[in-house]
C-alpha cells in the first residue's frame, strides 16, 4: 500500500463480497445454464432486456458506467463487464438474484443510491430488473459499439458541466406568493417552499429576541443594557447597519473562514514548532471582512496576493492561507519528496474545499470516484503550487502611514537645514571663519599614514538598517538591528597606491555599552571582510588580504581578526568582547599586492555580520594607507579633502570646496553653529523609518522558513511536479504543467487563457497562482459561479445553522442537494451583482422575515420537517465556543477589546477568543470542549455537542468563577432585586420575570447565609448567581 494513499471509499457492499464469492464458487452461473428450460428462460430474459432493461440502462446508468466514465470501476456496457462487477465487488448474484448488490442500489437499500440524486426508478422497473437477473441477465448485444482508447480514463464533457453546482447560475426570479409575512425576495423563495410542504412560517420574534439574536449572530457578543435600549429605538435596518459597521463583526465572522482554512500557528507533527508570524493571516481575514473586501478579491489575495499586489501588506498577509497546513518538522531523506507532495496536496485540497466546495484531493490516486475530476486535473492543479513555499519576510504593515510621516518630517527638516545654512552665511560668522583660517587652520596639519575615506555610498543589505556618513568620515548605523546583514561601502581616494586598509570600530552613545557593536552586550562580529577595486568600466576585482592586526580581538581563533577573511564567511569573525567593549578599536588588513589607483578606480568594501544574531558594527570608519607598515591605532587619519585643502592653502587660492572642508574644522569650536547643527542632527536621528514586521507568507523566491531537516538537505520544493501513479512519488509518469479543473472551464477556454506571463522586471514568482486566481473568480468562463454559490452558502449556513446546501464543503455528487436551489442561485447572482459584497449579503439575510421569525417550537410543523430544512422557524442553537466565552467576558465587563497582533495560549487572557494562539498540540481546552475543530483539514461546519465536561466547565472552571465574581462586583449588592434585574439585563438582555426574581432572591438569601463565615457573603452569593446565569440554556443558545 502506498504511504500517501488517503482516499477512503467503500460501500457497505464490501462486507458481502466473501459471501457472494462463496456462492459463485459452489453454484457457478454455467451450472444454472444447463438446467432445463434454459432456452425459454433466455428468450424471456432477452425480451425483458429489449423492452425495459436496455432503455433503462442507457437512460439512467450507461453514461457513468461504461460510456463517458466507468465510475467505481463498474461498467455495464456488456454482460461480461456487468458480471465482472466493480471496485465494490460483484453487482449481480446469479445464484441468489435477490441479493444482487445492483438491486440493493436501485432499491435505495444500499449506498450509494442509484441513479444518484434522482428519483428512485419505478417499482415496476425494479421488479423487471430482478426478474431479468433471475433469468440470467442476458444481453442481446453490448450497449456500446467497441470503445476506443484506454478503458476507464475519465473524460470531462459538457454534460458534466451541467451538474447542478457546475452549471452557470440560473436567472432565478422570486416566486410570486400571497402572503403578508414575506418582506424581502428571500422570503418569497422560502415561503413558496414552505407552502409547497404544507408548512407556514413562524411569526416574528419579539424585539428583545431579535436584538439579542442580531448581536450574537453579527458580532458574537450580547448587547449591553445601553445598547439594548438604543436598539429598541432604532428600526431593524439601522440596527443591522450599526452591527455591520462594528469592528467586532470581523472578529466573529473571520472565525468561520479560519475553520475552512484549517488555520493554525504551529507546524504540527513531532515538535509542533510555533509559526510565530502566522497570526497576520488571521488579522488579514478580520480586516478584510470589516472592510467588506469583495469576496473575489478576498479569494484572489489568498491565492496570489504576492503577485497581484506585492506592495499591499494585506495582500501579503493573505497568502498565509496556502501555507497554514500541517507540515512535519522531522524528516528523513526517504520522506522528503512524499512530504512535499503531501504539502502540495494540502494546498490544493484546502483551496478546493474552502473556495469551491470540491474534494479535489480525492483525485490524488485515481480519477475522482464521484465528481468529474480526472487524476490528471489533480496533478495539474497541484503543479500550480510547485514552487510555492512558506517564508517569513519583513513587511511594512503601514506604508501609507510611513509616507505620511516622512512627508511631514521632510518639511520640518528642510526648515532646520535652511536655518543652519542661514547661520553659516551670516557676515559675522564668515568673518570669524576668515580670521580662523589665517590664525589656526595651519595647526591642523600633521602628516599621517592613514587617509580617511569619505563614502560615496554606504548601504546595508537589510532595509531596517540605515547607514549615515558623519563629518569625520565615520559611518553610523541606526534602525532596528537585523539578525544578519552586510554593509557595502563605496569610496574614492586620491592616493596613487594602497597597501593597507583600516577599519576603526568606534563607540557611540546610541549603542548598548557604547558599542562599538550593536549586539545587546555592545559587541560585534565581522564574519567576513572583502575589499574590491572597481574600474571605470564597473569591473570588480576582489583584493586578496593576507594578514591583519587589531588593537584588540576576542580570541586568537574563531573570533580573531584573521578569521574575518578566512574560508568561513559566516561562521567565524573579528569580535572584541573580553576587554574591548566600550572602547574604540582598530583593525589593519594588509593587501597581498599593492593596488595601483588609476583614473576612475573606486574602492568597494563589504562587511558581513552573520555568525551571531544582531552582531553588526554600530559605528565605523574606513581608511587606507600607502605605507608598508602604518600604525595599528585608532584615529590620526585625515581625509583626502583635508589633504587637498591644505595644499591649496599653501598656494594661497582656496576654492569653495576647500573652504567647506576647513569650515567643518572651524565649526567644531563655534558655539552658535554647534547649536543649529545639533538641531539638524537630532532631526536626522528622528527621520521616520518604515516599521518592519515579520510576516509569514506563502510565496516563491523568498528564503524558506527554517526547517529541522535543512541540515539533511531538505530542498523545501522540487522544481517540477509530476503525474504520479497511485499517488506514489516513486512512480512518476511525466511532468505535470500547471492547470485548473476542466469541469469549470467553459466555451473552449483552456488554462492558458487565464495565465499571464509576469512583467519583464519580475522574476521572483512564476505567476502560476495569479492564473489560478483569475480562473477561480472568472464568472464568464471559469469557476466564478461555483465560487459565489459556495460563498453565499457558507454565510447562510452560519446565519441559520444549516446551509441551503447542508454540506458547505462538498458541492459535488456526494454532497447534499440544495433545499432551495433557486434561492441559492439568486443569492449567488446577487453577490456578484453587488460587487461581491458580503456585507450586502448579510444585510439581505438579516432584513428578511425568514431570519426575523421566532424560534418557537411546533410539534405539528416538526412532524413534517423535524430538522427545519424549510425554515419554518429560526433554529435555536448553541453558541459556538468563542461566542460562549466572549459573551461571559462581555457580560462581566471584562472583555479587552484590543484587536490584532500575536495571540496567546493563556486561558486567563481577556481578549476575544479569536486571539487565542492556535497551537496544534495545545488547543485551548475551553474552545475544544465546545467543538472548535482541530485545525488539520478544512472544516465547513462544526458539530454542536452537549457533553458533561461543558457542564463541569460552567460549574468549576477557574475563569468562569473569576468572571462571575467580576460581574457580581460590578453591580450594587445593596438592594438584591435591583442587583438581580441588572444581572439579568447584562447576561440575558432582559428583565427577570417575577417568578425568576423571587427564585433568585431566595437563592441569594440562603446562599449568603451559608457563607456566613465570609465577610463578603452577599458578594459570594451574587457571584454564585452570576455563574448560574452563565450556565442557563438561554445564555448559551441563540434565541
Amino acid at each position, binding site marked *: 500500500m502506498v504511504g500517501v494513499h488517503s482516499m477512503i471509499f467503500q460501500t457497505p457492499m464490501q462486507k458481502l463480497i466473501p459471501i457472494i464469492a462463496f456462492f459463485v464458487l459452489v453454484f457457478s452461473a454455467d451450472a444454472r445454464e444447463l438446467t432445463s428450460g434454459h432456452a425459454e428462460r433466455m428468450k424471456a430474459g432477452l425480451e425483458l432486456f429489449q423492452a425495459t432493461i436496455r432503455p433503462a440502462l442507457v437512460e439512467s446508468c450507461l453514461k457513468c458506467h461504461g460510456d463517458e466514465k466507468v465510475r467505481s470501476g463498474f461498467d455495464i456496457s456488456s454482460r461480461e463487464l456487468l458480471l465482472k462487477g466493480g471496485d465494490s465487488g460483484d453487482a449481480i448474484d446469479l445464484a441468489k438474484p435477490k441479493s444482487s448488490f445492483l438491486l440493493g442500489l436501485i432499491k435505495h437499500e444500499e449506498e450509494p443510491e442509484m441513479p444518484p440524486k434522482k428519483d428512485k426508478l419505478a417499482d415496476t422497473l425494479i421488479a423487471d430488473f430482478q426478474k431479468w437477473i433471475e433469468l440470467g441477465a442476458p444481453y442481446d448485444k453490448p450497449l456500446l459499439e467497441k470503445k476506443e482508447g484506454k478503458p476507464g480514463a475519465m473524460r470531462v464533457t459538457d454534460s458534466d458541466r451541467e451538474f447542478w453546482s457546475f452549471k452557470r447560475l440560473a436567472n432565478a426570479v422570486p416566486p410570486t406568493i400571497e402572503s403578508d409575512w414575506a418582506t424581502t425576495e428571500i422570503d418569497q423563495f422560502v415561503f413558496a417552499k414552505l407552502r409547497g410542504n404544507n408548512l407556514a412560517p413562524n411569526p416574528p420574534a419579539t424585539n428583545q429576541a431579535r436584538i439579542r439574536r442580531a448581536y450574537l449572530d453579527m458580532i458574537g457578543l450580547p448587547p449591553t443594557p445601553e445598547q439594548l435600549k438604543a436598539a429598541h429605538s432604532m428600526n431593524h435596518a439601522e440596527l443591522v447597519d450599526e452591527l455591520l459597521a462594528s469592528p467586532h463583526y470581523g472578529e466573529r465572522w473571520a472565525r468561520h473562514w479560519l475553520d475552512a482554512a484549517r488555520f493554525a500557528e504551529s507546524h*504540527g507533527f513531532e515538535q509542533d514548532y510555533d509559526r510565530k508570524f502566522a497570526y497576520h493571516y488571521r488579522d488579514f481575514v478580520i480586516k478584510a471582512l470589516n472592510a467588506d473586501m469583495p469576496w473575489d478579491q478576498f479569494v484572489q489575495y489568498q491565492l496570489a496576493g504576492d503577485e497581484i499586489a506585492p506592495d499591499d501588506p494585506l495582500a501579503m498577509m493573505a497568502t498565509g492561507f496556502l501555507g497554514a497546513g500541517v507540515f512535519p518538522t522531522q524528516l528523513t531523506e526517504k520522506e522528503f519528496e512524499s512530504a512535499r507532495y503531501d504539502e502540495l496536496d494540502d494546498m490544493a485540497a484546502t483551496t478546493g474545499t474552502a473556495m469551491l466546495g470540491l*474534494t479535489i484531493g480525492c483525485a490524488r490516486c485515481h480519477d475522482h470516484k464521484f465528481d468529474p475530476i480526472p487524476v490528471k486535473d489533480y496533478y495539474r492543479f497541484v503543479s500550480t503550487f510547485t514552487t510555492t513555499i512558506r517564508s517569513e519576510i519583513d513587511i511594512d504593515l503601514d506604508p501609507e502611514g510611513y509616507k505620511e510621516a516622512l512627508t511631514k518630517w521632510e518639511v520640518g527638516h528642510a526648515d532646520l537645514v535652511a536655518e543652519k545654512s542661514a547661520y553659516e552665511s551670516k557676515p559675522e560668522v564668515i568673518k570669524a571663519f576668515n580670521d580662523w583660517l589665517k590664525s589656526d587652520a595651519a595647526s591642523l596639519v600633521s602628516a599621517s599614514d592613514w587617509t580617511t575615506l569619505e563614502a560615496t555610498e554606504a548601504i546595508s543589505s537589510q532595509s531596517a538598517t540605515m547607514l549615515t556618513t558623519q563629518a569625520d568620515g565615520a559611518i553610523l548605523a541606526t534602525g532596528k538591528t537585523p539578525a544578519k546583514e552586510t554593509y557595502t561601502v563605496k569610496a574614492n581616494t586620491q592616493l596613487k597606491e594602497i597597501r593597507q586598509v583600516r577599519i576603526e570600530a568606534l563607540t557611540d552613545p546610541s549603542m548598548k555599552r557604547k558599542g562599538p557593536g550593536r549586539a545587546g552586550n555592545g559587541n560585534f562580529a565581522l564574519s567576513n571582510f572583502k575589499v574590491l577595486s572597481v574600474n571605470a568600466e564597473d569591473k570588480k576585482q576582489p583584493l586578496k588580504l593576507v594578514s591583519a592586526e587589531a588593537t584588540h580581538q576576542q580570541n586568537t581563533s574563531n573570533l580573531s581578526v584573521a578569521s574575518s577573511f578566512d574560508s568561513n564567511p559566516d561562521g567565524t569573525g573579528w569580535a572584541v568582547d573580553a576587554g574591548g567593549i566600550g572602547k574604540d578599536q582598530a583593525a589593519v588588513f594588509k593587501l597581498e599586492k599593492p593596488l595601483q589607483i588609476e583614473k576612475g578606480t573606486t574602492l568597494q568594501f563589504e562587511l558581513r555580520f552573520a555568525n551571531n544574531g544582531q552582531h553588526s558594527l554600530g559605528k565605523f570608519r574606513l581608511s587606507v594607507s600607502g605605507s608598508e607598515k602604518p600604525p595599528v591605532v585608532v584615529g590620526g587619519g585625515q581625509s583626502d579633502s583635508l589633504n587637498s585643502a591644505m595644499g591649496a592653502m599653501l598656494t594661497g587660492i582656496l576654492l569653495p570646496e576647500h573652504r567647506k572642508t576647513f569650515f567643518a574644522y572651524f565649526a567644531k569650536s563655534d558655539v552658535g553653529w554647534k547649536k543649529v547643527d545639533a538641531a539638524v542632527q537630532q532631526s536626522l536621528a528622528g527621520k521616520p523609518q518604515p516599521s518592519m514586521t515579520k510576516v509569514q507568507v506563502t510565496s516563491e523566491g523568498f528564503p524558506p522558513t527554517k526547517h529541522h531537516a535543512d541540515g539533511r538537505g531538505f530542498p523545501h520544493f522540487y522544481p517540477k511536479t509530476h503525474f504520479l501513479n497511485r499517488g506514489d512519488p516513486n512512480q512518476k509518469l511525466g511532468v505535470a504543467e500547471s492547470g485548473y479543473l476542466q469541469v469549470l472551464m467553459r466555451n473552449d477556454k483552456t488554462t492558458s487563457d487565464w495565465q499571464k506571463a509576469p512583467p519583464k522586471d519580475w522574476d521572483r514568482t512564476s505567476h502560476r497562482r495569479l492564473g489560478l486566481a483569475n480562473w477561480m473568480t472568472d464568472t464568464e468562463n471559469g469557476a466564478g459561479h461555483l465560487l459565489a454559490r459556495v460563498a453565499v452558502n457558507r454565510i447562510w449556513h452560519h446565519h441559520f445553522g444549516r446551509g441551503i446546501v447542508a454540506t458547505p464543503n462538498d458541492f459535488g455528487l456526494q*454532497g447534499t442537494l440544495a433545499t432551495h436551489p433557486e434561492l441559492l442561485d439568486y443569492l449567488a447572482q446577487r453577490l456578484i451583482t453587488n460587487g461581491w459584497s458580503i456585507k450586502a449579503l448579510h444585510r439581505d439575510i438579516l432584513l428578511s422575515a425568514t431570519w426575523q421569525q421566532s424560534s418557537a417550537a411546533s410539534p405539528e410543523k416538526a412532524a413534517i420537517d423535524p430538522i427545519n430544512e424549510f425554515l419554518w422557524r429560526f433554529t435555536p442553537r448553541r453558541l459556538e465556543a468563542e461566542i460562549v466565552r466572549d459573551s461571559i467576558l462581555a457580560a462581566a465587563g471584562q472583555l479587552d477589546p484590543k484587536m490584532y497582533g500575536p495571540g496567546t495560549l493563556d486561558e486567563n487572557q481577556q481578549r476575544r477568543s479569536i486571539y487565542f494562539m492556535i497551537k496544534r498540540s495545545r488547543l485551548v481546552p475551553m474552545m475544544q470542549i465546545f467543538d472548535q475543530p*482541530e485545525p488539520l483539514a478544512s472544516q465547513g461546519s462544526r458539530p454542536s*455537542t452537549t457533553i458533561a465536561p461543558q457542564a*463541569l466547565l*460552567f*460549574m468549576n472552571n477557574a475563569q468562569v468563577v473569576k468572571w462571575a465574581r467580576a460581574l457580581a462586583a460590578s453591580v450594587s449588592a445593596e438592594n438584591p432585586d435591583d442587583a438581580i434585574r441588572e444581572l439579568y439585563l447584562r447576561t440575558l438582555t432582559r428583565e427577570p420575570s417575577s417568578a425568576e426574581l423571587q427564585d433568585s432572591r431566595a437563592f441569594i438569601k440562603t446562599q449568603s447565609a451559608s457563607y456566613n463565615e465570609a465577610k463578603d457573603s452577599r458578594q459570594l452569593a451574587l457571584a454564585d448567581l452570576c455563574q448560574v446565569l452563565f450556565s442557563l*440554556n438561554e445564555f448559551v443558545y441563540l434565541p
Partner: protein
Amino acid sequence: MLQRAGAGFGSVGLASLLAQEGLLGANAADPHAPKIAHFDGKAKSVIWLFINGGPSHVDTWDYKPELEKVDGQELEGFDKQTGFFSNSVGPLMKSPFEFMPRGQCGKMVSSIFPKLGEHVDKMAFIHSGYTESNNHSPALFMMNSGQPRMGLPCVGSWATYGLGSESRDLPAFVVMSDPLDRGLPKGSAANWGAGFLPSVYQGTWLKPKGDPIENLTRPGHMSSAQQERQLDLMKKLNGAPRDAELEARIKSFELAYRMQSAAPEAFDIDREPEHIKKIYGVGKKNCDHFARQCLTARRMVERGVRFVQIYSGGMENQRSWDGHNDIQGNHSQFAGETDTPIAGLLEDLEQRGLLKDTLVIWGGEFGRLPLSQKSKKPGRDHNPHCFTTWMAGGGIKGGVSYGESDEIGHHAAVDKAHVNDIHATILHQLGINHEDLTYEYNGRRFRLTDVGGKVIKPILA
C-alpha cells in the same frame, strides 16, 4: 453511517452531533440508511500499552539464534537510509540479552522480562508487523490512526465513535503519558486526536500532576450543598425545556455533578488494598509510576471505560524505548519500568475475570534493526520493516505466535501483518467490522483501515 454512534464522554446530544455535515438530513431521517452488521465482540474494553520509541523485537520477544551466528558481520546490500541515521550504521549485532523458554508454550523470551515471561500463555505474538515510516511521529500516527499523516482519528476515537462507552461518569477513552517529565510521544495530542470525528471522541489525556481531568473539582470556596443549590436554581430558571437538545443540556449538569465524585474515586488508586498494589509494583522505585498507571487502567475498564492507552516512556532517545545509544542499558531500564506492572495488570485482570473481555495490547510504532548503531555503547536504529506486538485477553488465543520475521529480524517475512491488519483485529475483537465503521467527511467516506486491513484470525480464540 453508524446508527449506534454516540455516548462519548458522557455525551447526550446525539441529534445535534449527527447534524454535522448534514448527516442527519442525509441519513438518520432515511429508514434505508445502511446499518452496520454488528456482532458480539469478545472484548468490551481495550488497554493499549504503547511501548513508545520503538522497542527492539530481536531483544524482547523475537528470538533470533541466527543473529548470534552473524554477529559482527556487515549486512550486504543494506539500505543505509532504512533507519534514522544513515551515517552511523554498524554491523549486525546479536542481542545483548539471554533468551529462555517460558510458560507452558515454551516461548523464548528475553531476560529483561522476568515477570512478564510468566504470562506468555496468555499472549498471542505477531512477529511480522511492518509499517510505512522510519520516523517516530509518522510511525506513531500510523500506529494510532492507520496513516502516517497528522489529523486522522485514532483507534480509540474510532472505537468510542462506534461503540460509545459503558461508563456515564468517566471519559470513554483515556490516555496516560509519561509522568516523569520525559515528555509526550512525538506528535503529542494528535496521537489520541479525533481528527475529523467530533472532538467528543478524542482521548482524554489524564494530566500526570494535579487534577487528572479539567474542571473536575468544585471551586475551593464552595461546599457541596452550595453547589447543589446553584444547580437547583439553574433548573428552576431554565424552566421547562422546549427541545430535546435543551433537555439534554439540563441533564448534562446532573451527570457532571455525579462525575465530580465518581471520577476522582476511580482515579484514586490508594483505595486499593496493599496486596493488589504490590502485584503491580506500586512503591517499587523503578516502576512505581507505570504501576500506578496500570492499576488506574484496571479501575477504568472495571468501570466501563472503553479504551485506555498508556505510553511507556516520553519523547525520544534515552527518554523512551528509542535505543539509538546503548540498546542494552536503554531496554533494561524501560523493561524494568514496565515488567512488574504489566505482569501485575494481566494477573489482576485475570483474577477478577476481567481479562476475558479486556483486550490488552503491547507494542510500539516500529521495530529496531538487527544491526548496531555506532555509538559509545552500541544502539539500534529504527526498523519500519519489522516489529513484534502482542495481544492478550479479549478473545485472543494465548501462547501462540503469528507470522515470522526473516532469520535476522530485518524484514517481516511470513504472514506479514500491516498496521491496518492489527487495527482490523482490534476492532473485530470489539465487535466492529472495520470495513463498515465509516465516517463521511468532506465528501469522502473514511475508515480506520483505509482500503486495507484483514483480521488476523489465527490468533483469535
